[in-house]
């Protein structure tokens, strides 16, 4: 099933939570919705699920208007940020709920329901928890039960609101891979919300970056990482060095001094230079186009992170290979390998 949002607007009082959202999700796609807190991710999911109604715009499922139908008729599986498991039902009954409330003429027999629940619990690898109550489960287990419950109704669309939000880093990693495998096997059109960019880039086919109720960029993980469309996306995805520059007369100036780099992206006037930390090459003091002194060095993983006070005034953090020896006080020259310049300070 495809999902399409056209010009969706939603206000709460005077506040615009969604400000004209256009989005197309292909059949069977796994899409990540990424953005800072309050950017409208949950609101968009709730509108797609029919738990909230837009003030303007359209939602189409397979080209048909979905706003005609209430949440009940949309067959959307929703996994809530805080699980929302039924606290007075055990795991089995939680998963069986969607099957038990079906209209009598299409309702499965008790034996069929049992078989289906068993199948789903096997799928999420928690069949041994069937008799437990939600309060007796760990966060990761609850999350998977919530997913099994949503899948029970054979949804045409699966929406996951920060499915791993409340879990610790290690469990997140496991579940993330598990979700990708699961999606591969059931292949239902899915949108999942996260504000963990690594999660989005690793799991999703495409990533949607939102800010302040608007979509900033839609693209593959490598698109949004390597070619950010806006300053916001560059700053939000991956770690960036940001320097305030002035573009005049076909040259980039930092604090009045021209830099030896080409103007890029058609910016003019007060702009911002964005460079990924590992794209800032480090060399001897007389090389490069930016100069400064090392003030702090930390080593972890494959890189070392150096804090450098530029002679131009700012302090930046760069990632250098570990075999490049750096000591506090060293004078160095820097040159960006890849960079982007966006208009605006």
């Amino acid at each position, binding site marked *: 099933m495809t999902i399409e949002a056209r010009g969706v607007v939603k206000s709460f009082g005077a506040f615009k939570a969604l400000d004209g959202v256009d989005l197309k999700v292909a059949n069977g796609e796994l899409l990540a919705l990424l953005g800072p807190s309050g950017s409208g991710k949950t609101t968009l999911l709730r509108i797609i699920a029919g738990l909230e109604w837009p003030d303007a715009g359209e939602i189409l499922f397979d080209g048909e208007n979905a706003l005609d139908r*209430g949440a*009940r008729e949309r067959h959307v*599986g*929703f996994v809530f940020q805080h699980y929302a*498991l039924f606290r007075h039902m055990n795991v089995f009954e939680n998963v069986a709920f*969607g099957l038990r409330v079906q209209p009598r003429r299409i309702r499965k027999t008790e034996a069929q329901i049992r078989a289906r629940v068993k199948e789903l619990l096997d799928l999420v690898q928690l069949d041994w928890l069937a008799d437990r109550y939600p309060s007796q489960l760990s*966060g990761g287990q609850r999350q998977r039960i919530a997913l099994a419950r949503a899948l029970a109704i054979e949804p045409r669309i699966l929406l996951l609101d920060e499915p791993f939000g409340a879990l610790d880093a290690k469990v997140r990693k496991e579940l993330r891979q598990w979700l990708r495998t699961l999606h591969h096997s059931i292949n239902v059109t899915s949108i999942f919300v996260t504000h963990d960019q690594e999660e989005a880039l690793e799991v999703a086919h495409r990533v949607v970056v939102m800010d302040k109720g608007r979509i900033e960029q839609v693209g593959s993980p490598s698109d949004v990482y390597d070619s950010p469309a806006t300053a916001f996306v560059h700053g939000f995805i991956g770690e960036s060095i940001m320097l305030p520059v002035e573009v005049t007369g076909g040259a980039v100036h930092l604090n009045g001094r021209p830099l030896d780099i080409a103007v890029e992206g058609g910016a003019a006037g007060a702009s911002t230079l964005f460079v990924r930390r590992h794209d800032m090459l480090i060399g001897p003091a007389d090389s490069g186009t930016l100069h400064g002194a090392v003030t702090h060095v930390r080593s972890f993983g494959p890189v070392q992170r150096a804090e450098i006070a530029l002679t131009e005034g700012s302090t930046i953090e760069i990632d250098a290979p570990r075999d490049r020896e750096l000591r506090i006080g060293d004078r160095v020259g820097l040159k960006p390998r890849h960079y982007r310049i966006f208009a605006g300070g």
Partner: protein
Amino acid sequence: MSIEMTLQRTPDGSARSLAESAARRDPRAEPAIVRVAIITLAIAFLSIFVVLPLVVVFVEAFGRGVVAYLSALADPEAWSAIRLTLGVAAVSVGTNLVFGLAAAWAITKFDFPGKTFLITLIDLPFSVSPVISGLVFVLLFGAQGFLGPWLQDHDLQILFAFPGIALATIFVTFPFVARALIPLMQEQGTQEEEAAISLGASGLQTFFRVTLPNIKWGVLYGVLLCNARAMGEFGAVSVVSGHIRGETNTMPLLVEILYNEYQMVASFAIASLLAMLALITLIAKTILERNIDGDMPHDD
């Protein structure tokens, strides 16, 4: 209320004469002497104002022996009062159960204009003297009242009869169920309901399978308090009852009448029934409160 809480908060190590070791462990603990003084004060207060009157009721009721006690209760007038009280309580609790559920559901699960006003309105009976509540019904249904002539034309008896007593009692007790449910339902939020609906449940299925099981202890709690008040209500009922002997006297009204006639055993025998109701209510309330705690959502 505050006394109850003071007692609950005392460390359970009090058996070991408020061991100083406990005081050292608990940074909030006052010096032992202060705590002993406060606890003694609380117990003395409770004894004089709660325990003593209860004891007196039973002593007076059984003052002439068990036979006198039982025959006082077997008196037709007493029987009539007991039946009337049970009937009125059943009607009021039933009505207020439906009303309270509806009000709490509307207030906690939906946003609508006038919501704050509705909440204020629910509390009205708590802030109005019961006598005034009774008078309102007299003004409405009395012979000189607003609806009086119309009722008389149609031969409908509300005042000085069961309907009037039931109406006054319903009015006085209507906050209990709603008040017990609103905080609980507010705390629980609407997430489970939303999950149920997105799984295909209808409104009724959601209510009976998700909402109601989540609040059942709260409902029982509200019903319990509502019932205790309905059976014990004096002021409002006194105004609308008309005190027709053997017909419109509830138990509290009969206690007063018998007492004024110096029928001590009969009066206290009925009072003892009300006292027992109070004790049972208290015990049930404690049990229910524990269960409601379990229904409150936990942070996780």
